């Protein structure tokens, strides 16, 4: 139970970074932390009591494996997170090029 609460705490740390920080790069780091917390939560959901890691080897009989489906789903989610982070960083670099600053309070040109 404490593991789930710590995972929630990690998610809230990332959420705080996204909401309160003014530097664009810090917002992106906050997103990365949120992604880690979500993936960690999903993998932890697949835990069985005294389960072993789900790798089959040629000379071992492992009968009590943890759930394998969350591991693949998290693999996919990590790749999606990578694509998203790459896009956000590219946008941040171009914003620096055009506006000369990383501070989001100074990049307010759209009004209404």
């Amino acid at each position, binding site marked *: 139970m404490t593991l789930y609460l710590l995972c929630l705490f990690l998610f809230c740390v990332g959420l705080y970074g*996204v909401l309160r920080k003014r530097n*664009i790069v810090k*917002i992106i780091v906050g*997103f990365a932390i*949120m*992604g880690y917390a*979500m993936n960690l*939560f*999903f993998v932890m*959901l697949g835990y069985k009591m005294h389960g072993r890691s789900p790798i089959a080897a040629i000379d071992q009989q492992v009968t009590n494996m943890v759930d394998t*489906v*969350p591991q693949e*789903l998290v693999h*996919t*989610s990590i790749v*999606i997170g990578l*694509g*998203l982070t790459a*896009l*956000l960083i590219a*946008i*941040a670099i*171009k*914003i620096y090029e*055009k*506006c000369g600053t990383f501070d989001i309070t100074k*990049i*307010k*040109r*759209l009004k*209404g």
Partner: protein
Amino acid sequence: MNNSFIAALFVIVPVSTAFLISLLARFARRGYLYALSVFSSGSILLISFYALGVLPKSVNNILVYNIGGLASPFGISLVLDGLSVFMLVVVNLAAFFVSIYNIGYVDKHDDAPKFLTLFFMMLTGLNGVVITGDLFNLFVFLEVASIAGYALVCFRGGAEELEAAFKYAVMGSTGSAFIFIGIAFLYSFTSTLNMADMSRIIAMKEGIFVVPFVTVLFIMGFGLKAALAPFHAWLPDAHTSAPASISAMFSGVLIKALGVYTLARILFNVLGTTQALLSALTVLGAISILVSGVLAVLQWNMKRLFAYSSIGQIGYIFLGLGLGTPWGVFGAVFHIFQHSVAKSLLFLTAGSVDKSAHERDLREMSGLKEKMPVTAWASMIASMSLAGIPPLGAFFSKLIIIIACIQAGFYFYAFIAVIGSILTLAAMAKMQKFAFLGELREKFKNVKEASFAMRISIACLAGICVFGGLLLLPQLKPFIGNAAGVLLEGTKYSGLVLGAATK
């Protein structure tokens, strides 16, 4: 299983087109790339019409295709039922006309191969979301379409577009995070990812805490993708700064396929609806109508006005869905079709005005009707349709939603819907007066009409807008009736899909 392999084609064709265009960018001239894009989107449209025709001949009106031949609860299955085929036709119709429009709209200075590659990746994501029967597969395609969308908003690289793209990306990823957590909870509760299997298990087990919690998470996540109030704040910036054809795809198709369709599918077919949930949807829909109606009239930027009006029309659709009665759901589904045609047409005309006159502010424009007759007529038809003037298309869908409200006894919501319609009429009339009617200004003496490709796509969409009311004829009514019927069946969907899958 003979005909159901066409379900796989909806994903294969756009993906291969995207990468072929990216590969052939060095070797072929631009004309061939545009021809390939139009050919590909046209062929997907024809396949979706074929699916529409082949569906009534199959068991229970459902076609199920298992990817890789793996049996249903273990593998990923693609499900074609009434609602999926309806959304496929809506998505691919808009995409076809937008890809014709792109021929005239994309500049010589823009990077056309990258633009078309991203466009087709977005189309892949949209098609994939609509046909999949597996919950995590839906999430993956949702992310593909969303990320392609974020990249397309900032395509022209100006400071405003970059700011809008960053805001859209941050808010969209937060919505996706909520959806992911919801899927995690649902998986841990039912230990399966297939949507039909999941609904069967949820009906059997007693999920007192999990199901309402997951419902709230999904309303937050998918509501953000659909721009439901109070999650609508990203939409005005993103849809204003994107290139016009991409704005047409966003407002016309993306918010409906990624937001409305997914929320309706999961809430009606998988989780099962309760009265509290439906009334929550109607309240959010009514708030959207009021918020957008008031703010749309105050805008002076042409595309920003259209973007705010989109929020209100999505509110209409959720109002209809939340009533839960047959007429309500029918009206909502009909309004999806009408709004996607009308709003895409409005954004395309805004794009052609922007390209010819290089002006977006309504205070600087007037009298363009003399120089750009096709654009002006099409814009008039689309705005009158959205405002609810008979006998154009969206009048019927709004009328059905209002009648459904009165039938269900919600007089207050019907009143709000009528107020919203009046405010939309005011906003559209303001746009028409300033942009097209009146005296032609000096600086617009040399404005030319839009190019041929743009004119063809605008004219065709205007024709569909005019004749949209004909979809209520008894021969054509099953097109929408089947889609509404799937939603109204609710959790019986699981039995039908599993029954069709084992054949």
